[in-house]
């Protein structure tokens, strides 16, 4: 069955960055359609019908998010595009920024028109230097062609778009951490409520959307919300980019409908497991998601099914691990990341991530104790639902799921002071 390519239509095509080429292939047609023939409310309605959900990690219905912006406010409204892609395993937004930046800009125009926003900032992670250059070039081209500026596409609608580089902090992908960073401060997430839709950037109503989420808008406007919804599954509309990596033969970005079985992504599109070894574990939605065992590989890749299974679709970053990967060391690597990225503001995250990392380091070094496992489970509980933002929960979920689902590996490592996988590889010939 041919897979619908919406945002990845021009991936791999060097010409797609050029405005003239892009316009010839329908670039900005949808934006024009929205501006000329639809009211802002109609645009929001289409997006709501489409069941488009936030593709940065939280999966919040996009149309509903937009509707939280107060209609009658005399404050300026802002859009911030979250291009701070830093969830381990995620690299899909980078493709959009590098191959098809005009699609993003078009999505930005549609969103801003729908909500009544005239100033948008793209917050792009500092490490993405070349994608930043390409995006900035596209923005410059757009301004020159009158696509951005006082009269967008010649219509009576003004929109300014600025690209703002981050400086190396995963927490700035958190909505309010992003806002703080944009305002020139440390990326310390804010207390909520109020939510950004009411009090956001510079205290004004703000929409924050992921790069990919916005990049789906042109096709939604072109073909209608229902068309998009039908591509996916119930309450999870359309397709999305999956970033597949780890022990697969063909790591890369794959655009697939919401509801695709995980097995299909790994074996059909990803080419199966490296060296044809047995699959052991899959991280389905970036490092913050709960790990799945190989028996769970038939799960449907949509927000609701994964939530029901105790994990999450998250950023669409699927990382496959085969039998040769030590689960203890894998968790150690993941918790190192969270300890490094914790902003330090609140107690459970600041101290919890550090403590978990130290404990795992000790276990990996061969000095674990039986009590450590029990303690790790308690830390996972104490770090869930007690912090200011979801980074702490994001550290707690892999912690709890790895220890629970691969308990035997942890027990082995502690008892015998070495990795089960290593020990096994000496006894079992591959």
């Amino acid at each position, binding site marked *: 069955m041919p897979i619908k390519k919406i945002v990845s239509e021009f991936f791999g095509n060097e010409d797609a960055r050029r405005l003239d080429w892009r316009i010839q292939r329908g670039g900005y047609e949808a934006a024009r359609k929205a501006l000329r023939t639809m009211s802002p409310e109609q645009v929001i309605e289409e997006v709501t019908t489409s069941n488009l959900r936030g593709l940065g990690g939280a999966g919040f219905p996009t149309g509903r998010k937009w509707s939280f912006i107060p209609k009658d406010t005399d404050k300026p409204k802002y859009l911030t595009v979250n291009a701070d892609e830093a969830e381990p395993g995620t690299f899909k937004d980078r493709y959009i920024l590098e191959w098809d930046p005009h699609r993003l800009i078009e999505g930005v125009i549609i969103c801003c028109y729908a909500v009544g926003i005239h100033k948008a900032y793209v917050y792009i992670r*500092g490490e993405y230097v070349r994608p930043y250059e390409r995006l900035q070039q596209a923005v410059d081209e757009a301004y020159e062609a009158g696509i951005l500026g006082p009269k967008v596409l010649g219509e009576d609608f003004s929109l300014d778009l600025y690209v703002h580089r981050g400086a190396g902090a995963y927490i700035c992908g958190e909505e309010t951490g992003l806002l703080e960073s944009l305002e020139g401060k440390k990326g310390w997430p804010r207390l909520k409520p109020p939510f950004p839709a009411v009090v956001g950037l510079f205290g004004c109503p703000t929409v924050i959307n992921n790069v990919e989420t916005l990049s789906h808008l042109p096709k939604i406007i072109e073909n209608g919300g229902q068309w998009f919804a039908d591509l996916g599954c119930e309450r999870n509309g359309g397709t999305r980019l999956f970033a597949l990596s780890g022990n697969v033969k063909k790591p890369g970005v794959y655009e697939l409908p919401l509801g695709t079985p995980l097995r299909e992504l790994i074996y059909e599109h990803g080419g199966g497991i490296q060296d044809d070894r047995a699959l052991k574990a899959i991280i389905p939605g970036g490092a913050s998601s709960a790990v799945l065992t190989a028996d769970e590989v038939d799960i449907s890749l949509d927000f609701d099914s994964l939530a029901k299974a105790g994990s999450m679709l998250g950023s669409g970053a699927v990382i496959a691990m085969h039998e040769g990967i030590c689960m203890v060391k894998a968790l150690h690597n993941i918790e190192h990341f969270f300890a490094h990225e914790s902003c330090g503001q609140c107690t459970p995250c600041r101290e919890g991530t550090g403590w978990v990392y130290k404990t795992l380091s000790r276990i990996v070094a061969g000095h674990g104790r039986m009590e450590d496992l029990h303690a790790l489970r308690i830390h996972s509980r104490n770090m869930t639902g007690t912090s200011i933002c979801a980074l702490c929960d994001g550290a707690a979920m892999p912690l709890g799921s790895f220890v629970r689902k691969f308990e035997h590996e942890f027990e082995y490592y502690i008892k015998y002071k070495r990795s089960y996988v290593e020990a096994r590889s000496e006894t079992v010939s591959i």
Partner: protein
Amino acid sequence: MSFQFTEENEKKFADILSRYPNKRAAMLPTLHLAQEQNGFISEEIEAFVAQRLEVPIVDVREVLSFYTLYFRKPMGRHHIRLCMSIACWIRNCDEIKAYLEQKLGVPSGSVTEDGNYSWEAVPDCLGACELAPMLQFDKYFEGNLTREKIDELLDGIQNGHKS
């Protein structure tokens, strides 16, 4: 002698300021611009930025100490960031790290003696997991690393770099 923007950078700075309703919001882009010009952020530059953005100097240092991309001391002519995050770890970045350390002769977080390279092995995912194991060389991503590729990269640097 105190730090000043070049004439061209003053223009860029004015453009940066015009994008935000207040000066503080220009903090990150201003620091990037200063680092581009100076190679790293010195204490002088901290004072300069604090003065130009009209913020207390302690706020500038808070920002500098929080983010990882601002250099606080001179780095090598080229800076390498080796990704050590989960997807790259699964694909044996540990070996690449050991090789880099051997080849460059200095541990992660240092500058080589000849000043050509500075490097760090970072736990942050750099967003190129399909190329695992990978590193960032200045502004470019180099992936599917092997010892040979590292040799090619470091030894071939004289000829400039492919995009």
